[in-house]
């Protein structure tokens, strides 16, 4: 009743190829954008403190959504599994740091984008083994990348400007007279920048996956031999997926350090984080952009809420709640895989299908 496609006819292919062919979807997206750009900045999330909302929920969730989008492009759309996401975020962060020290006056957004490009190149190099090996074997190749990069972040002191602390730190950066990054920046400013980048990157990703290149990734994912016989060059398809995916992951890594954490050392990019990002993709839904949002939000927010609720309502101590949220993540993974291997996104789609028919269930 509320959600139906009847009566919405497309007279041109171009209209059907639009991002949201249904009017209801367009309205829905507009509402979400208004919430994100107007409602949350003004009111925060009801019941949560404003600082907490921004610093511990909204900004990290947006950043991890970018990571998840990136990993989803690789895993969900191109079918190449990676456990090196954490380290690739590190590549983004460290290269952004280096670019900032070499060109101190460069606009920070340009730094972030450049570091995405650097990560894309690195991702492509580590994606090379994927031409020869598949499936579980690729896990090993990407873990090799993970561990090698972790080692490099420690051993190559040039990467962190020979800091005694061995870490990288953000400093105050101005843009149009406003401090946008660094300790003195306002959370709201960083929120808007991260949100805008997220919206932009989502739009770009949805364009690419609906076009020629996105199709070539899905062909490789669904049946690589057939794809090759139809004329997809595996080298181009796989490496472009690695590059595009790493571009996103790199950007999110730079954002994580310079628009959220403020500083980082190698530990923020270790293999346990790679797993977290993998969970975000699985729970959200392989091969779904909406799913990337849902997965990142769920995997990040639920443990935070579990801890808060456990602490303030039930008085459980942090130790219990931490273990509880670890178990929760594990159970969530298993249940999602059993109930709907395509994740929350597919469940959402099914709900939408039902809404289409509601209130007449036939």
């Amino acid at each position, binding site marked *: 009743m509320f959600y139906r496609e009847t009566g919405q006819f497309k007279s041109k292919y171009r209209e059907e190829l639009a991002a949201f062919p249904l009017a209801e979807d367009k309205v829905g997206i507009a509402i979400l954008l208004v919430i994100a750009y107007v409602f949350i900045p003004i009111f925060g999330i*009801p*019941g*949560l*403190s*404003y*600082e*907490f909302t921004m*610093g*511990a929920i909204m900004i*990290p969730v947006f950043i991890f959504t970018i990571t998840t989008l990136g990993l989803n492009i690789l895993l969900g759309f191109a079918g190449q599994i990676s456990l090196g996401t954490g380290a690739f975020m590190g590549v983004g962060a460290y290269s952004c740091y280096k670019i900032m*020290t070499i060109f*101190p006056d460069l606009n920070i957004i340009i730094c972030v984008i450049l570091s995405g490009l650097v990560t894309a190149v690195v991702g492509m190099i580590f994606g090379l083994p994927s031409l020869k090996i598949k499936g579980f074997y690729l896990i090993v190749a990407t873990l090799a990348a993970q*561990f090698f990069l972790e*080692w490099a972040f*420690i051993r190559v002191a040039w990467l962190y400007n020979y*800091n*005694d*602390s*061995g*870490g990288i*730190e*953000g*400093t*105050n950066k101005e843009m149009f007279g406003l401090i946008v990054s*660094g*300790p*003195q920046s306002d959370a709201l400013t960083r929120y808007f920048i991260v949100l805008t980048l997220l919206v932009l990157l989502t739009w770009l990703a949805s364009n690419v996956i609906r076009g020629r290149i996105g199709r070539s990734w899905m062909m490789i994912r669904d049946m690589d031999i057939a794809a090759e016989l139809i004329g997809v060059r595996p080298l181009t398809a796989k490496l472009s997926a690695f590059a595009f995916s790493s571009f996103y992951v790199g950007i999110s890594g730079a954002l994580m350090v310079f628009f*959220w*954490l*403020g*500083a*980082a*050392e*190698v*530990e*923020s990019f*270790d293999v*346990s*984080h790679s797993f977290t990002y993998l969970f975000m993709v699985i729970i959200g839904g392989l091969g779904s952009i909406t799913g990337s949002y849902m997965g990142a939000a769920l995997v990040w927010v639920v443990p*935070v*809420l579990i*801890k*808060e*609720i456990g*602490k*303030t*309502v039930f008085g459980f*101590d*942090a*130790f219990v*709640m*931490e*273990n509880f949220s*670890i178990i929760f993540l594990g159970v969530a993974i298993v249940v999602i895989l059993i109930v709907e291997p395509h994740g929350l996104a597919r469940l959402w789609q099914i709900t939408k299908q039902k809404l289409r028919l509601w209130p007449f269930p036939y």
Partner: protein
Amino acid sequence: MKKLFIGAIMTIGTFISTIGLSLADELLVPHMTYRVGPYAANGTMVANGFTDYFLMLNERDGGIGGVKVNPEECETGYKAQVGVECYESYRGKNALVHTPNSTGITLQILQKAPEDGVPILTMGYGLSAAAKGETFPWAFNYPASYWSQMTSILSYIDSQSGLKGKKIGFLYLDVGYGREPIPVLEELGPKMGFETLYVPVAGKEMQNQSSHWLTIRKEKPDWVIMWGWGAMNPTAIKEAAKTRFPLDRFIGNWWSGAHVDTEALGSKAKGYLASSYTTTGTSFPAIQDMIKYVVEPGKSKTKIDMPGKVLYNRAMFNAVLIAEAIMEAQKMTGKKMVTGADVRLGLENVKLDAARLKELGLEGFTAPLIGGCADHENGGSIFVQQWDGSDWIRQTDLIPPMTDVVQPLLTAAAAKYVSDKSGWQTQTCK
């Protein structure tokens, strides 16, 4: 069904609305702990010692200055990212002082502290340069920085066997914490005429150190100094024994010489040395009170055998210092409910001299600690203790650091830290 649904929504709503409301009339002392994760063994002891002291104050004295203390734990699992999340969750809640309990987390929140007006006390860890109070008004690393500690350890070695012409092995956990003292070794090596062999242990290799010790065997250093943590320590001691390295030439820093590191090994670890700035044992009245008011009645998670052990006592001292700073702040401002900024002043004016220590029931527990505006580490002295097969026994008097070496290094490091930061807040001290 519908009712159930509405009911559920309402319950969740109530839960959520209670979040973020900080209870008034409590002194909030957040505490980042790690009772889970690969370093949980150490983290559990640290968390208990810290929390128990405040619980004891609440039970015995009704809090500090009549206001109860809420030593709230935030579990980090020793992960920097979760630590930042913890930090963010205390924004706007009038936290008095942050205790990150991890050098990694410290580095990440160090820059935020001035903006939020909450001091960070990193007792025995953190950034060495934070000792410079003029550059880092909001950070404290009482009672000594890693660099001071390293020079004290080197003087100890010098007093035992001389340093000139010797080869020192430096076995360290390959993270920010482990690499901290390297500048001191690099500076002092040529000056004092010793050679250093660096043996980094990656976090993943903590429990798999045979090749590190083969390297040590190959290079034959005269002494080995260890900057280890968690499972790295017992593994290293075991491997040292295996390769027949004399354990009384193997000295850990203050995080590498706790009961959790040696108890499981028992007599196999006999002779192993470590530095410390707090005494072990339960003979101190303050610790007796903690056992009486908190541990025995079962008001905390502490098991009865934990008080008196190295990490428990050390974490308790951390709490003592914070309590003293809060008290000092209350005295200075005349308010009962102080703020983070007040506690910062309290930390700079804290006076833990021998008399005050005795008053607190901690006579001879540690070196006296007098806070200062310019000096945020108090140039603390340490002593060396040795594992006798069943307990840690104090071996030496207090060994002061080589101030003349450390201070210029700290000044330079502090200057380097702020050099690329615009608008960094400093202070001038009289």
